[in-house]
């Protein structure tokens, strides 16, 4: 039987952070994820690197953690961060008396909040409603959840860690109150097998309760559903928050050429309850209209939903009142040694959460190696020479995009390929500037099984056309390179479009409906991927 020291369950930000930290401290570790990396909440949120200002009044500790981690991630994870800064905007609808409390709260947490005049704010962000009352600048930023997860894994692998995706945990095995391993199931083949280990670290967020139950334990995590909207424009160049008590639909985050607005908050029955609704979208737009009166002029690309893991010691507590802070639970206290759950928290503090969980493991192991994840860059910068070579094949902006997506190592492999085969510079995804060489690189990775896996690694299909053109091309590439893992190419095409459809069908008005007619015209009308064949 295969054996490692520690198994991390969950391929979101926390899980990959733990994996990297374990590997860097020399602990033999493997990560297991039920679907693809960042399939859960780490890709279903704003993509906001909090300054902490949102928590300054209500939860000063969370605020302080955020600003510290924000500062660290801007440095070690700069390839995933766009340092946009953020505005906190008090609108006509926001109570005036909160402002002073908030300014004081930011000061206490060490978060820089600098007031600027409304005129200056409107000069910087002309789409903001001219009726706004007060504006502060804070060090918020945009962060790419997929890329952050992916680059953590690349780094962990360099330190010897293993990763297995599409692997579901069936059972956590133990003897005499001590973890001995896990029984897992291959998602594609259904085959079950065991992996031995001394530690299991549960970093499964909203799924924490379900997973703990597989070890016969209880963890009080309430999945809380949040829906977000992606617009196909950069409505603002900065993160825009409402200056009021944190609430629904009050944050806009720019990412590349799009903007994300969110979120709603609603108790969910299940962690994978990720279907948005028209009602939620309309609610978000109504709230968003207070900050941006022209919000209806922008095309909505899609709506999407994630579930936050809200932890409370009392399993019956629900909603926004529950703590957003995190806890590390050593289940030795519940009678199972070697099983640790980390729950709650937020993307911004994933590194700190990982550090705490790994500290706990290392204490058991007597491992004194200090944590270095706050110092060492996740991926290296590409050298000037490498960038020079890359620019021969990519447009200048495309070269920087590719470098930030791939990191130095990945970029170097892609550039090698381009030099050998210059025709692979062809753009498979025009919306996000993704070349054939990059798609081939992502598709060939052992964690890529479906087209959506390639999408998360490259951003292909995530731009304006939502896969209308690049889906066919990417599947073609997978077939040509024998990377379909035996799957029917027609099913790969359909699955990918279906995954996009899940987010589009709740915003089917304006130009989204025209885009849908185009996509259907191509795949159903012309290519007939769905029609029954003649007998």
């Amino acid at each position, binding site marked *: 039987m295969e054996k490692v020291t520690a198994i991390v369950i969950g391929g979101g930000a926390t899980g990959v952070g733990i994996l990297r930290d374990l590997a860097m401290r020399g602990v033999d570790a493997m990560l297991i994820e039920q679907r693809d990396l960042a399939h859960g909440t780490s890709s279903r949120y704003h993509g906001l690197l909090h300054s902490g200002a949102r928590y300054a009044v209500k939860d000063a500790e969370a605020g302080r953690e955020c600003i510290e981690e924000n500062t660290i991630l801007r440095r070690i994870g700069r390839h995933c961060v766009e340092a946009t800064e953020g505005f906190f905007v008090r609108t006509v609808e926001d109570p005036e008396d909160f402002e002073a409390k908030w300014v004081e709260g930011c000061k206490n947490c060490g978060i820089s909040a600098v007031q600027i005049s409304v005129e200056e704010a409107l000069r910087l962000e002309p789409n903001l409603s001219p009726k706004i009352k007060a504006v502060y600048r804070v060090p918020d930023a945009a962060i790419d959840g997929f890329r952050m997860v992916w680059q953590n894994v690349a780094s962990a692998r360099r330190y010897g860690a293993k990763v297995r995706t599409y692997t579901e945990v069936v059972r956590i095995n133990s003897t005499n109150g001590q973890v001995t391993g896990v029984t897992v199931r291959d998602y594609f083949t259904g085959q079950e097998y065991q992996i031995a280990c001394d530690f299991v670290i549960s970093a499964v967020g909203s799924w924490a309760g379900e997973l703990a139950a597989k070890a016969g334990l209880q963890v009080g995590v309430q999945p809380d559903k949040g829906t977000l909207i992606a617009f196909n424009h950069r409505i603002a160049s900065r993160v825009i928050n409402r200056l009021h008590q944190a609430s629904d639909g009050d944050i806009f985050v720019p990412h590349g050429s799009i903007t994300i607005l969110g979120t709603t908050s609603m108790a969910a029955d299940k962690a994978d309850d990720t279907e948005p609704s028209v009602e939620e979208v309309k609610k978000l737009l109504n709230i968003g209209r207070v900050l941006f009166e022209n919000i209806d002029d922008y095309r909505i690309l899609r709506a999407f939903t994630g579930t936050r893991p809200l932890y409370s010691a009392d399993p019956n507590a629900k909603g926004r009142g529950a703590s957003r802070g995190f806890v590390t639970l050593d289940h030795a206290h519940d009678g199972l040694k070697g099983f640790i759950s980390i729950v709650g928290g937020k993307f911004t503090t994933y590194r700190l959460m990982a550090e705490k969980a790994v500290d706990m493991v290392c204490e058991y192991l007597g491992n004194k190696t200090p944590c270095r994840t706050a110092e060492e860059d996740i991926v290296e910068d590409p050298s000037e020479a490498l960038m020079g070579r890359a620019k021969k094949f990519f447009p200048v902006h495309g070269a920087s995009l590719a470098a930030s997506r791939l990191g130095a190592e990945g970029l170097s492999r892609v550039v090698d390929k381009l030099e050998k085969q210059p025709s692979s510079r062809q753009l498979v995804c025009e919306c996000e500037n993704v070349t054939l060489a990059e798609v081939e690189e992502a598709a060939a990775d052992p964690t890529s099984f479906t087209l959506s896996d390639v999408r998360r690694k490259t951003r292909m299909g995530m731009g304006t056309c939502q896969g209308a053109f690049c889906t066919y091309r990417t599947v073609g590439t997978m077939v040509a390179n024998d990377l379909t893992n035996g799957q029917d190419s027609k099913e790969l095409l359909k699955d990918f479009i279906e995954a996009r459809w899940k987010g589009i069908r709740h915003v089917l008005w304006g130009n989204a409906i025209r885009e849908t007619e185009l996509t259907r*015209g191509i795949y159903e009308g012309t290519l007939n991927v769905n*029609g029954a064949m003649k007998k």
Partner: protein
Amino acid sequence: MKKSDVVVIGGGLSGLFAAAVAAQNGKKVTVLSYGAGSLTIGGGIVDIMGYADGNVPFATPIEGVKNAPEGHPYTFIGEDTVKEAVEAFKKMASAEGYAYQGSLDEMQWIPTAVGTLKPTALVPRTMDVAKMEAAKKLVVVDLAGLKDFSAPMAAKNLGLLFPNKTIETVKVPELEKSGRDMTAFDTARLLDRADIRTMFAAALKSKAGKDVCFIVPPILGTHASYVAFDDITKQVGAPLVECAAVAPSVTGIRLRELMLSILRKQGVVFIEKANVCGNIVENGKVVAVTTKDFGRQRTYRADEFVLASGGFYGAGITADQENVKEVVFDLPIVAPARVEDWTNAKMFSDAKQPFAMIGIAVNEQLQPVDAEGAVIYPNVRVVGRNLAGYDFCFEKSGNGVALTSAYKAASLIVKGGKA
């Protein structure tokens, strides 16, 4: 602005064909166009009716027309008119030297770029599926540098459909070192040149032979003529069949050229970038439509109007969060009240998409009617994608409804309103 007999709103296939039929019968026609509709997506092939509800293929196109469900445009257009329209189209195309083949009595299962087959009715000669069916070996052309066509995928899936045929691919080197991405249209433009055709044919020749048929992306020339196709076929010495592929559709661009050439000869006035947004009504009849572009408003007067503005895709119908609207005459739209009921949970299934059935209700004269069935404007005819009650992607009926409704509208106008 001089008055026309007929103003056609929309420059897609239904608008162009309505204009051609009316003009051929002596009417003075003006076309107001704002783009080419779906001609550049799937155009170039005339689907009539491929699938019944439940994703069951019809044996022949006419069987599909006869069995069209209640409320389907074909039930208003009528079987006889469908037959007349198909003949009129074929005659018109033939006279221009770009004949279409196929009929209502035989389904043409043409190959696609995925390697599936798609049921259609009328195709250009470049898509003669009989040649593919007769061949023992299919060779899929893999042209270096061409985007939007995967020969390995097409070959693999065709192999599943034709287990008794040998399936191969043939690599063709880049036709031109352009250093940029090549679409099917770019490639077709190159193959308009005789020297490039010779180069292309030479690359295929090694695989040519008895019982061989080449499956090619739609790249055999941009024009509505068979010059490039015939030249290449002759040089290769084996048949070539073009497949249906991802937009921009070269076959659709050829069809558009064909229609525009006909309109030109008949003296139809063709206005581009005409953003039609309003109308003038006198005594219950429309007397003019108005356009607004670059800040200047123009008025186009006519006795009869054909609304071929292309539904949602053509922006003839628009939707916001609360309302669905027909933009020129503000005609009532038949649509489920809640957006929640517009879609199926799956994009691809055995059921039609409710939103695709959204459109304008008409009577048998193709005049728009209100909820009680009363005619709204007697001199407005609604054609093509604006019509309610059909899902062209699911049924494979797009250009069929476009052509036949256009023909009916034009014929009614020519005959003075009597069917």
